[in-house]
């Protein structure tokens, strides 16, 4: 039992053009990506290789026909939008009308947070660089999920799982966990209902945008459990669980617990350790009800007629996880320190949430935000529909260091952290060393001119003297690590040399 697993995150950022609410956001997003790419020597702009992408493949075992698919589901058709691979193994691109950063593959929750935080710097720098272009009115990026007028955009997590786990078991055991984990990793929101038509604070940014329990869609009728099944790896061994229900976190601790606790719950599902009994009568309704009650007192109905609070649901999973770890399933844990740390923090957070959630004001996003908002309400006598409170909500996620309220709280010593600025800065350019992201990133670092395209599961070289492109598949996420290929990059000055060494020529 371990938190260790191949995983990563993808964040779509909110974007606005200063003083121009009707500006084309697809264009603005493209400018952010291109400005970052050209300023960082990614001029060749290795293209994303879509060969292995199947966004319409459903984990339940069928393919949605392209005719029936909503056009927004077709993410694999290169629309000519900006799309680059970074030397840290991440992907920076435009998805719909948002700039998006997908972290490289990592193996621990802490690493996912580290490379996601590096992505915040990438995004902010891209926006700054694009704002310096002649005639630009200035571009602002926000790490949030809603405009409070009906639109939502995602912060997704990806977890590689064993293929042989029945999907029904995933749905059964993950749904109550996902419905309740917002009390730990919700980002907080001023406004209720998708269009913000009701005033008030709620725990989650995304909760109100979820309408069904299980489904393939990600842009409409959003499901608590998303069935997209593109493993980007050997499909006979792996599935990639694509999680769309999370909020974009600024808090390092919240993001860490989000990834860590979810990975532990998945480990228990893989081992068949969970026995059920927590099925919710109405998961979607429960998700909304929990989000709307920041006193955490709301009890939701279970299938068997009992009622239970979100905190008690989380305690149930934590207690199972603690028992599971104690039993030492699956041998030695290479990330034992982090597994224990996730369990300890999870327990500490749940304990304090039960006593007084405000104790978490310097650890969790929704509490930090609520604490600020309540202070404003008290000092200035503001109702929940006051524009200033909406502004605090929005500006919490502003990526500009001087304007972003989360960042101001950090600098004022009012948010606890897990990471140092130095390591985040390093992760902007360096890939994780223990996944195939290392190979991808190092190829981009050492031979940028020779990489024609890349994706999660391949790197494609354009080598001198060859008419056709040469594709190196990277279907195994735990190969291509520093241990496997680090020496090759030191031994070969050219992509040709590397290619010959790998292919045994």
């Amino acid at each position, binding site marked *: 039992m371990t938190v260790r697993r191949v995983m990563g995150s993808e964040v779509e950022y909110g974007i606005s053009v200063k003083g121009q609410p009707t500006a084309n956001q697809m264009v603005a997003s493209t400018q952010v990506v291109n400005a970052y790419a050209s300023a960082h020597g990614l001029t060749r702009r290795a293209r994303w290789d879509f060969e292995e992408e199947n966004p319409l493949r459903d984990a339940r075992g069928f393919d949605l026909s392209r005719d029936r698919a909503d056009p927004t589901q077709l993410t694999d058709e290169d629309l000519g939008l900006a799309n680059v691979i970074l030397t840290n193994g991440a992907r920076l691109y435009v998805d719909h009308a948002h700039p998006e950063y997908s972290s490289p593959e990592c193996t621990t929750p802490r690493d996912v947070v580290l490379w996601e935080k590096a992505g915040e710097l990438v995004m902010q720098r891209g926006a700054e660089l694009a704002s310096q272009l002649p005639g630009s009115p200035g571009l602002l990026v926000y790490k949030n999920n809603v405009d409070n*007028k009906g639109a939502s955009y995602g912060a997704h997590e990806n977890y590689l799982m064993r293929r042989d786990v029945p999907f029904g078991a995933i749905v059964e055991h993950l749904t109550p966990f996902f419905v309740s984990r917002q009390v730990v990793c919700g980002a907080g929101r001023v406004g209720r209902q998708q269009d913000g038509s009701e005033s008030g604070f709620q725990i989650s940014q995304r909760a109100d945008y979820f309408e069904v329990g299980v489904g393939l869609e990600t842009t409409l009728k959003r499901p608590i459990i998303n069935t997209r099944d593109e493993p980007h790896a050997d499909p006979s061994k792996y599935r990639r669980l694509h999680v769309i229900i999370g909020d974009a976190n600024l808090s390092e601790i919240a993001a860490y617990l989000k990834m860590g606790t979810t990975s532990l719950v998945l480990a228990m599902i893989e081992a068949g350790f969970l026995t059920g009994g927590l099925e919710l009568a109405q998961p979607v309704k429960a998700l909304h009800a929990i989000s709307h009650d920041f006193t955490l007192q709301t009890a939701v109905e279970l299938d068997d007629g009992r009622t239970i609070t979100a905190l008690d649901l989380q305690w149930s999973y934590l207690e199972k996880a603690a028992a599971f770890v104690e039993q030492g399933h699956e041998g030695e844990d290479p990330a034992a320190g982090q597994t224990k740390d996730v369990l300890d923090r999870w327990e500490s957070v749940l304990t304090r949430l039960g006593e007084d959630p405000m104790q978490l004001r310097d650890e969790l996003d929704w509490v930090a935000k609520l604490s600020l908002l309540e202070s404003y309400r008290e000092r200035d006598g503001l109702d929940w529909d006051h524009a200033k409170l909406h502004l605090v909500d929005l500006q919490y996620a502003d990526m500009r260091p001087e304007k972003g309220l989360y960042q101001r709280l950090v600098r004022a010593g009012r948010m606890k952290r897990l990471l140092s600025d130095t390591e985040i800065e390093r992760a902007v350019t360096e890939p994780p060393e223990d996944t195939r992201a290392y190979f991808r990133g190092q190829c981009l670092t050492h031979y940028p001119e020779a990489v024609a395209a890349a994706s999660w599961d391949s790197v494609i070289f354009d080598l001198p003297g060859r008419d056709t492109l040469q594709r190196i598949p990277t279907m195994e996420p735990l190969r291509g690590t520093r241990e496997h290929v680090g020496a090759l990059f030191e031994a070969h000055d050219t992509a040709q040399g590397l290619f010959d060494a790998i292919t045994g020529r």
Partner: protein
Amino acid sequence: MARDGGQQHKTTRKSTDEQDDVQVEPSEDVAERKEKLDDDIDSILDEIDDVLEENAEEFVRSFVQKGGQ
């Protein structure tokens, strides 16, 4: 739930003990602490007032996004 009843899981009990330990530390005068906390909150609100966008209503209204995933 076990947490609320007498049959608490080991995990839960442990946390309660730790919590008790933490509370043993000598505390400042309560009123003094509250005053310090209020000053603290005032100072962070003042700092944030300085960086909040002007014309909150206009700024919030013009933040319009297209839906994403």
